[in-house]
């Protein structure tokens, strides 16, 4: 699946914010760390000098008790003192002196008479060793830095959290900004939808969003072209309608004049007139159906319609018994449909049932969820599985079950039904009636 523009922009914003805030955090962390360490180091060195002076003063000669003097120092818990004197390590505790804690590098440095300090890790904890040569030997202090370590850890955590939050905020800003940036496109989408729904007058205002003016202008141009084209098609259909219908009117009237006088004609002429008369009727139906198809992509002109009355009327007009109508419980009386087109769809379905299906056995009105349903059942042999979609194509005719003198339909009836259903946003399907025969089902939203 393709990732959406909004998601991509938001992600970019988030990554950008994360990189930026991570850099800032790292620099701040480093600065804070070095400042804190050097500060701590200075303090430790100062304290060590002070302690060293005290030790020096407490050990005027080689006889004094080193342990006693070291113990007298006020070192607290995070400082340990050591004295390296005559190759021996002294500490305030009686136990073995922890001279190993002092790195050899520092020992060598201080042995040369220079004071020094070095950071080490003692039992996994950060510590600082400061060494100062004094008269009585070399005085060391090991200062625990674990507290500083903890502080820095906390600072690191806080900075990481801030970086993550900034990244989140970046994503939110990206989302928000793209929503605003895409809002004009929402207008374009709505306009396109309107046009698709048949409102061809929908246009965009190019001044509303200067940055998208080019898009708006192209869109409007496209809509103009579309409207012009549809208008041209409409006019063409109207012209064709007029040009075909006028001569048909002459033919129809003239044929009726001749037809009246058939009795006086010789049999051949009479038969020919009969043929002409029939074909004029068929031609007329064909023209009507073709024009209906040509105009069938127009949106449905919905109005509240009493469907039961409509079915009863169509049945009556076709000479079919009105008790064909079955209404399922819960079916609303009034449907919001294009009265003329639904009437024609029903008429065509009934004609189809009469012509190819051995006559209709039921017309059912019902509901399926939010959709209105019309079903027409017939008594015919049913429709083969593979033909159930083909029959809605143009000029497809079934084998007439009760062919009366080749009185075939135009072959357009069912395609018109399909187009009328589609104009309502609905569908028509052919299926099987339980117990044999075909069932046509029209579903309308």
């Amino acid at each position, binding site marked *: 699946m393709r990732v959406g523009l909004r998601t991509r922009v938001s992600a970019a914003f988030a990554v950008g914010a994360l990189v930026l805030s991570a850099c800032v955090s790292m620099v701040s962390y480093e600065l804070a760390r070095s400042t804190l360490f050097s500060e701590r180091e200075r303090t430790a060195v100062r304290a060590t000098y002070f302690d060293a002076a005290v030790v020096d003063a407490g050990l005027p000669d080689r006889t004094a008790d080193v342990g006693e003097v070291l113990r007298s120092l006020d070192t607290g818990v995070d400082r340990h003192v050591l004295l390296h004197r005559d190759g021996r390590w002294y500490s305030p505790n009686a136990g073995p002196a922890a001279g190993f804690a002092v790195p050899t590098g520092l020992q060598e440095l201080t042995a040369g008479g220079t004071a020094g300090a070095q950071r080490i890790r003692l039992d996994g904890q950060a510590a600082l060793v400061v060494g100062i040569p004094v008269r009585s030997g070399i005085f060391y202090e090991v200062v625990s830095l674990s507290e500083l370590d903890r502080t820095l850890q906390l600072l690191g955590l806080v900075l990481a959290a801030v970086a993550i939050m900034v990244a989140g905020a970046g994503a939110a800003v990206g989302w928000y900004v793209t929503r605003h940036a895409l809002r004009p496109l929402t207008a374009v989408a709505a306009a396109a939808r309107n046009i698709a729904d048949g409102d061809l007058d929908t246009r965009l205002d190019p001044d509303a969003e200067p940055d998208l003016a080019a898009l708006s202008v192209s869109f409007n141009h496209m809509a103009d072209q579309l409207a012009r084209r549809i208008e041209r098609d409409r006019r063409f259909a109207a012209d064709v309608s007029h040009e075909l219908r*006028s001569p*048909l009117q002459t033919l129809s009237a003239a044929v009726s004049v001749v037809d009246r006088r058939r009795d006086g004609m010789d049999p051949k002429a009479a038969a020919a007139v009969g043929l002409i008369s029939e074909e004029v009727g068929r031609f007329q139906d064909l023209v009507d159906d073709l024009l209906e198809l040509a105009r069938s992509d127009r949106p449905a002109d919905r109005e509240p319609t009493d469907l039961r009355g409509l079915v009863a009327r169509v049945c009556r007009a076709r000479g079919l018994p009105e008790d064909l109508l079955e209404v399922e419980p819960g079916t609303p009386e*009034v449907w919001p449909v294009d009265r003329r087109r639904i009437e024609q769809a029903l008429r065509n379905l009934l004609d189809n049932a009469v012509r190819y299906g051995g006559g209709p056995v039921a017309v059912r009105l019902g509901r399926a969820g939010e959709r209105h349903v019309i079903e027409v059942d017939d008594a015919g042999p049913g429709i083969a599985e593979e033909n159930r979609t083909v029959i809605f194509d143009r000029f497809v005719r079934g084998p007439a079950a009760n062919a009366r003198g080749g009185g075939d339909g135009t072959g357009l009836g069912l395609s018109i039904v399909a187009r009328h259903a589609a104009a309502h946003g609905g569908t028509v399907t052919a299926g099987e009636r339980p117990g044999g025969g075909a069932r046509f089902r029209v579903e309308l939203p």
Partner: protein
Amino acid sequence: MGSVLLIEDDDRIRLSLTMALEDEGYTAHAVATAEEGLVAQRSNPADTVLVDLMLPGMDGFECIRQLRRVDDVPIIVVSARDDTHDIVAGLEAGADDYIVKPVAVKELAARLRALRRRARAAAPAVTVAAFGDLEVLPEAGEVRLRGEPVAVTRTEFRLLCELAEHPGQVLSRQQLLQRVWGYEIGDERLVDVHVGRLRHKIEETPGAPRHLVTVRGLGYKLQR
């Protein structure tokens, strides 16, 4: 049987329809333009006028309006245009019926007969029906609004009488088509446009009718 005036610019249609109508027993007089038709109707009024919409010079819509100004003769539009827009415009101009070409002569004759039956309608059931400031007098053939007579066509009058005979009762478009036009099957737009025309004559605000109201999806009724 009666006389018919045919206003049709297509020579062949005019000729063939005239012959066919004469075969059906009508006295048919055919002219090619609206202007000729208006003159003919004034000098020698026919019982029914058949008019095409697309005519050279004055078009069919204007012709109907001019005819309506003079009298209430039944007018049927016979046009090749079958757009709802044209049908409604033709009826709104004042036509009583609209037929799309090509029409079978038998069908045309049936419509003409229905119109004539309507002209000689049976005696009305009530002599006067009052709906507030609106009075329908079927016997006198009059409609009065606040005491003043209102000019209505024959079809409009029949429609109003039909509704007045069933005060407060909903009549479906099909019932009205049957009772007023005499059609078993017909175009319901006929009823809608005639109701609209009537509203312009009898309602103070035709957009929000008080007397002649629509019952959604079912039909129309007349009330106080």
